[in-house]
């Protein structure tokens, strides 16, 4: 078999995301290579896990995919349309379809806004404005709060009145509000108490299934990725070390590095 293969269904249909030769360097004269020639396809409905150590380029990759940063070289197309060189006003198709959940809800929720304004903020975007009036926005707010198991009266309160797990639910509700097709989650549970991680992960998995979302899930926790994702990409120092179906990557890893990572997953003997 040849080097990294794509999942069979991804090769068949046109991929949602098509990433080619993606490189992003930082610093003077591009001394720090955060990403170095990454090729990646994500098809609709896929649940892709991106794993790797800190500094392997995971966050850089998803920021580029969400068009929050520009690559040094390389291309990313979303639904067949190149996004890396588009000016912000023409990125509407991407903004309306891709939403993010960040690692730490203490930083991702504005402490001076009520939960209601936080969750409905994406609806104020020019790409969605007009589609939803204030009344529909209110309805949508109640829908998504309900979807993440928060009471409707949460809307009038502030983020600091909630626990860590609840705050991450607020962040998830915000991501769901505009009805995206792709959810990018950047280490969504690593800042949370161990006791609430499973709840939030199960909620996320349930919402992805119920809303037919494509999930891009970034984590350094392989056990979580194994539980949640069908496809895995292993990043190492800005390059893809291995990619393939989750079962194969975890079951019979090909690269030395991935083997070491997989064998480091803690197991509970029963």
């Amino acid at each position, binding site marked *: 078999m040849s080097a990294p293969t794509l999942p069979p269904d991804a090769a068949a249909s046109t991929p949602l995301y098509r990433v080619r030769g993606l490189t992003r360097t930082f610093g003077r004269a591009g001394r720090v290579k955060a990403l170095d020639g990454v090729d990646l396809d994500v098809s609709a409905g896929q649940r892709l896990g991106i794993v790797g150590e800190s500094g392997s380029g995971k966050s850089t990759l998803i920021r580029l995919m969400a068009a929050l940063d520009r690559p040094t070289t390389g291309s990313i197309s979303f639904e067949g349309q190149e996004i890396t060189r588009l000016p912000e006003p023409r990125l509407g198709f991407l903004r309306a379809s891709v939403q993010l959940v960040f690692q730490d809800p203490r930083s991702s929720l504005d402490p001076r*806004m009520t939960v209601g304004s936080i969750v409905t903020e*994406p609806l104020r975007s*020019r790409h969605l404005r007009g589609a939803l009036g204030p009344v529909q926005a209110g309805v949508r707010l109640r829908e998504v709060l309900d979807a993440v198991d928060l009471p409707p009266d949460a809307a009038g309160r502030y983020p600091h009145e909630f626990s860590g797990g609840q705050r991450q639910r607020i962040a998830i509700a915000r991501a769901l509000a505009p009805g995206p097709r792709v959810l990018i989650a950047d280490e969504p549970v690593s800042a949370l108490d161990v006791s609430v991680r499973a709840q939030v992960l199960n909620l996320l998995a349930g919402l992805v299934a119920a809303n037919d979302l494509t999930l891009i899930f970034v984590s350094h926790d392989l056990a979580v990725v194994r539980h949640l994702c069908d496809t895995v990409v292993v990043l190492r120092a800005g390059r893809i070390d291995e990619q393939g179906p989750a079962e194969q990557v975890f079951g019979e890893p090909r690269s030395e590095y991935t083997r070491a990572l997989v064998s480091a997953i803690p197991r509970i003997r029963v």
Partner: protein
Amino acid sequence: MRRLGLYVGAALVTLVVAMALVSLFWTPYDPTLVVAGQRLQGPSAAHWLGTDAMGIDNFSRILVGAQTTIVVGVVSVGIAAVIGVPLGMLAGQARGWVDEVVMRITDIAYAFPALLLAILLAARFGASPVTAMTAIGLATIPSFARITRAGTLQVMRTDFVLAARASGIRWPGISLRHVLPNIAPLIGVQASVTFALAILAEAALSFLGLSTAAIVPTWGKMLRDAQTVMFNAPLQAVWPGLAIAAAVLGFNLLGDGLRDLLDPRLREVS
């Protein structure tokens, strides 16, 4: 006890504001009424703070002087904030060469002596409170621009701004909903400290004869009048001196107290 400074500051500021308000409707005597027979009297039941070299009641002049102090402070801080805050937000959000240009101009303006600016303006447009306020306002723009830029940079680094950008919220929305509310405390503190600076500067300009030329009493002008009789009636300099010191101390304590009070929340944002 930790908030003692804040309370003392708030009390002194309230006192100055109350004096200005009361003097609008009532003063013990006409603050411009010259009574030839009662020059340089010491404190008495009739004249609590005595009378000046023209026989005018000192207490009445101090009360009316508070009006000028408040007006000068508000207008100077207003000019500085209205120009400095947008400049700082622009620099902090645009980054790159816009940031460089704005901040270098700010550096140059910062290095320009405020008193020289006041003298130049007075020479060109004549000595008046408007000239003084304009000079003080222009001279304090750089400090507002700098502190606003620093706060803006901090807010722009948060994930909630990233989340807003990922939804296609553009800079006007981010500025109004995220940046401004989160840096408002910072600007409030700066306003309070600048207010103290403005009071002091106006007193200095009055003393030099660069502010009000009319009969309107100001604390700086009272100080100037007192100078000529300093060895015969030292108390004449004490009253306006105390008033200036109390007002400056009040606004400084209030600013410091607010800073201490609000700091923990700012740290939580970063």
